[in-house]
């Protein structure tokens, strides 16, 4: 072939037939195919890289979260990020290593990490606590054998007792009537005094009138005789020496008239006063008789109460026998049949308590009224209203007669006036003031006779002496939080730093009631019957106010019972995770928390007790002291051990918290002791002997018995939720002394002796003389034996009571805020003691980590290029 020719024919000499066509074809066709395929692969790589980076960030975040605050975890069971290391640094270090899993696919440009949702946020804290306690709380309750459902049921039953304030009304009505009678007696006494004076004057004036009139008649007679002699003897008569001159007669007449007028006036006054006396006496008599009638009618209604009471008591006996039978069979407390019977017994006991109080209140007030009416009848048996009426009528006639008495008609022949015609015998027309006094004194004696004064004096003295004892609070737990320090360092505590004394009103009504009893007791010896009655009325009124407040409190409790289901977990956490005063006898802390953390003498600060130790004169002073101390600021970073008490009151003062808790616990015990005290045979007998003082004595016993229970509880003893024995009775005091004194381990012998003396003082006797003394109080009546359950039901300790109180009284918000403050103070104290390099701040106890990474995904083939095409920002959120 000729090459020239070929060149000529083929202008595209590069094209040589089909040579290279396949290569060309593949190059043209495969390049886009390959490009698309590579792009898809790159996209896949990109997605995998991003997804792997997300995972790496997640692992780095989890690793950072693992750097938790160990003390907060161990002590409080809560997860939060530690504050010792910088979050960003920890996260970055971990991420850099985790990014190594991706090889060179990505380049991390920058990282950022910050904490979110600190424990200081109430909802965060709540969720963490719920997370921790959803398992541990039921376990703790099971370990403590707290059958909450059963507990709540019993609580509701005990609080279902009727209105105590209404029961006091029965006594108040009787006292009211007696006050009316006593007031009338005082008025009558004044009137009787006036009438006595009138009577004296009446006699004097009559004598004067008689003398003046008779002198005039004598003078007229002499004048007449003289003038007759003159006519019969001489023509020139000589004046006789004995004849009265005309001027003397005039004078005598004037004097007689004056005496008559004065006598007439006194007769009128006497008649008016006697008439008033008669009217008042009629009213008084009517009031007394009506009271007596009411008492009689009340007796008939008491029969109905007594009959119902009898039948309820029979039922109770029957149930008791069945319980005894099952017990003898060896059935345990958790036996379903036994539990059912116990439930019936509790219901019946509440009913019996109510009926017994109604019966005893009616009986004692009837006894008081009957005694008084008897006295009244005896004192005034000689007085007769009709007689007085007749005398008043005679006096009125006499007055008329005196008005019509004409001295001008008097002559020498006139008959001399005598008592028979011109004086009315008023003997027996009124009751003398001294007789009324005797009646009032007799009533006063009657009031004292029933041992009311002695009983109230001792009980009152015991009540007040309790506030002077060293048992009210643990003196070694006396820290006051340094609010200024926390304000300056962290801008304040994380939760609300204010005490809430919602129950103070009720405490004050109790204080007023006890105050009025003191005043009544002081007045009893020297005061009049009326004053004593008025004091009793004041006591009853204060008692009514107090029981109304308590009743409202009970209603609130019963309402709260319905909502405790939602509060169980976090309340269990608070109640069993915080130390309280019973864990610190003498200030030496020893407590294992719900989280298993052991607290000892160095976990919390220890303070010398002497500097802050003080006692109170009475309840009112104590209440004032609590509120004075409540918002003080001190110099302590944390409490010494009474943290559980802080949950109830929220004061910076540990002592104020202890005292408020004491009073709150006391109030709950008041509610729980109503049935046992009111249904107790001995207390009924003691109060029944005091006549109109019955409601007062019962009310006082209802207040003092819980005080004893509370004293025992706060000093480490267990007290049954449902008491079967009342301590403040002659038979109960020895066992009280036996139980209470050993609890005072950390107290001096002097303290113990004082408490013993105070307790014995309640009966004003030695323990060996209780029986004798009891007979004195009850006038020898034999007391019925009080039947119990045979064992103490649901014995709870201080912490368990506070658990119940918190369930019922402390709101979720209050609990969480106070918990936050306790976590802050205690944990700060811990790290401060350990010389940590940071200041613990709950606001920085983060539970969530937010991280952000800026990264570049390196492309596959142009590893060829230095930098990647794809820069992206990724975020990651991880939390506990």
């Amino acid at each position, binding site marked *: 072939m000729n090459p020239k020719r070929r060149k000529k024919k083929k202008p595209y000499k590069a094209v040589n037939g*089909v040579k290279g066509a*396949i*290569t060309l074809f593949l190059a043209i066709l495969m390049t886009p195919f390959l490009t698309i395929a590579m792009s898809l692969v790159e996209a896949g790589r990109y997605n995998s890289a991003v997804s792997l980076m997300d995972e790496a960030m997640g692992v780095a975040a989890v*690793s950072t979260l693992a*750097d*938790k605050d160990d003390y907060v975890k161990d002590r409080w069971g809560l997860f939060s990020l530690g504050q010792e290391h910088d979050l960003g640094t920890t996260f970055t270090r*971990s991420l850099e290593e*985790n990014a190594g899993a991706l*090889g060179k696919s990505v380049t991390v440009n920058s990282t950022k990490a910050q904490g979110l949702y600190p424990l200081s946020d109430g909802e965060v804290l709540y969720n963490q606590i719920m997370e921790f306690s959803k398992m541990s709380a039921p376990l703790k309750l099971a370990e403590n054998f707290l059958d909450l459902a059963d507990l709540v049921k019993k609580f509701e039953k005990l609080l279902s007792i009727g209105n105590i304030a209404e029961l006091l009304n029965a006594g108040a009505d009787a006292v009211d009537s007696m006050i009316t009678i006593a007031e009338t007696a005082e008025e009558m006494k004044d009137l009787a005094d006036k009438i006595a004076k009138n009577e004296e004057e009446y006699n004097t004036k009559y004598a004067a009138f008689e003398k003046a009139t008779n002198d005039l008649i004598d003078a007229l007679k002499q004048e007449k005789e003289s003038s007759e002699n003159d006519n019969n003897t001489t023509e020139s008569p000589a004046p006789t020496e004995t004849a009265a001159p005309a001027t003397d007669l005039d004078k005598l007449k004037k004097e007689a008239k004056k005496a008559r007028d004065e006598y007439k006036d006194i007769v009128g006054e006497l008649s008016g006063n006697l008439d008033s006396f008669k009217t008042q006496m009629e009213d008084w008599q009517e009031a007394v008789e009506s009271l007596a009638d009411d008492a009689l009618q009340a007796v008939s209604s008491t029969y109905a109460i007594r009959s119902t009471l009898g039948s309820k008591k029979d039922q109770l006996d029957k149930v008791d026998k069945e319980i005894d039978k099952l017990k003898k069979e060896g059935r345990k407390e958790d036996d379903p049949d036994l539990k059912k019977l116990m439930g019936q017994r509790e219901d019946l006991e509440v009913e019996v308590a109510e009926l017994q109080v109604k019966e005893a209140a009616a009986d004692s007030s009837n006894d008081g009224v009957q005694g008084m009416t008897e006295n009244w009848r005896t004192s005034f048996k000689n007085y007769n209203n009709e007689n007085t009426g007749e005398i008043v009528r005679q006096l009125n006639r006499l007055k008329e007669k005196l008005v019509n008495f004409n001295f001008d008609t008097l002559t020498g022949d006139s008959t001399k006036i005598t008592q028979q015609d011109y004086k009315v015998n008023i003997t027996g027309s009124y009751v003398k003031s001294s007789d009324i006094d005797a009646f009032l004194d007799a009533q006063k004696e009657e009031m004292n006779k029933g041992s009311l004064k002695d009983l109230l004096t001792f009980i009152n003295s015991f009540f007040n002496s309790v506030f002077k004892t060293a048992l009210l609070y643990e003196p070694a737990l006396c820290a006051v939080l340094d609010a200024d320090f926390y304000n300056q360092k962290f801008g304040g505590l994380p939760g609300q730093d204010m005490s809430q004394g919602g129950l103070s009103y009720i405490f004050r009504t109790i204080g007023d009631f006890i105050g009025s009893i003191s005043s009544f007791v002081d007045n009893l010896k020297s005061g009049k019957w009326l004053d004593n009655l008025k004091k009793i009325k004041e006591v009853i009124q204060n008692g009514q106010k107090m029981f109304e407040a308590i009743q409202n409190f009970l209603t609130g409790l019963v309402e709260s019972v319905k909502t405790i289901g939602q509060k169980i977990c976090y309340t269990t956490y608070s109640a069993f995770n915080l130390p309280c005063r019973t864990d610190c006898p003498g200030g030496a802390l020893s407590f294992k928390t719900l989280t298993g953390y052991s607290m000892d003498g160095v976990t919390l600060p220890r303070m010398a007790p002497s500097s802050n130790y003080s006692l109170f004169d009475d309840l009112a002073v104590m209440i004032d002291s609590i509120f004075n101390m409540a918002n003080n600021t001190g110099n302590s970073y944390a409490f010494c051990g009474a943290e559980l008490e802080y949950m109830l009151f929220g004061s910076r003062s540990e002592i104020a918290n202890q005292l408020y808790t004491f009073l709150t616990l006391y109030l709950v015990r008041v509610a729980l002791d109503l049935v046992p005290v009111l249904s107790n045979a001995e207390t009924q007998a003691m109060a029944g002997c005091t006549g109109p003082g019955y409601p007062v004595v019962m009310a006082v016993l209802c207040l003092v018995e819980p005080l004893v229970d509370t004293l025992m509880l706060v000093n480490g003893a267990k007290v049954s939720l449902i008491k079967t024995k009342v301590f403040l009775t002659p038979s109960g005091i020895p066992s009280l002394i036996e139980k209470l004194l050993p609890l005072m381990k950390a107290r001096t012998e002097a303290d113990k002796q004082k408490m013993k003396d105070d307790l014995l003082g309640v009966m004003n006797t030695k323990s060996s003389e209780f029986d004798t003394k009891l007979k004195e109080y009850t006038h020898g009546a034999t007391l019925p034996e009080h039947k119990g359950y045979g064992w103490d039901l649901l014995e709870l300790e201080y912490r368990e009571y506070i658990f119940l109180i918190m369930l019922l009284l402390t709101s979720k918000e209050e609990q969480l805020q106070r918990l936050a403050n306790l976590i802050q103070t205690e944990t700060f104290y811990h790290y401060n003691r350990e010389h940590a390099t940071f200041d613990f701040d709950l606001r920085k106890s983060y539970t969530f980590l937010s991280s952000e990474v800026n990264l570049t995904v390196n492309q596959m083939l142009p590893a060829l290029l230095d930098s990647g095409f794809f820069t992206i920002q990724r975020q990651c959120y991880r939390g506990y």
Partner: protein
Amino acid sequence: MMRKDQSGVITLEACISVLMFLLLMLLLSGLFLMFMAQTVTAHVVLETTESMSLEAYSLEKLAVDEGTIGGVGDQLGKLVSSWFGNSEKSPNFVSAKKWYDGDDKEIAAAIKERFVGYLSGGDEAKADKLLTMMNVVNGLDGLDFSQSYVEDDTLHVFLAYKLKYNFNMGPLKDVPVEQTACSKLWK
């Protein structure tokens, strides 16, 4: 019409260029497979690290020492383990003992066991097959965790293995891969 002296040119050319393209494609597919293998192992390493660091918490809280009766908490731990899985039922996901207290060898073994768990649900044969399929040299046996360790309560996972090319017909050497991850233990 093709000249006689040019006959077979296309065939010849196709034999050369198509083969080259094919080789290129196979090389690329081998690379993709490597990426896939790395991605898979990276994912599993991260999962393993997270899982093992978190497991420390349950081991501390719920593990019941052998030979003791145990308290209520221990019994509860057993109960929880039985609900959510225990070392007998799921050995690849739940450890029977505190592996982090052992030496590096024990730690590496625990990591490898967990790795297999996350890779194939605990089936070693399946894991081996999967790794072999992804061109991991020696499959499961080719994975080396021996440099992993626990220090300052932090688990450092170190995985080393080699990847071979698909259709490697000659000079290409195996590609060494190293992957690391770490996480503080939740003790």
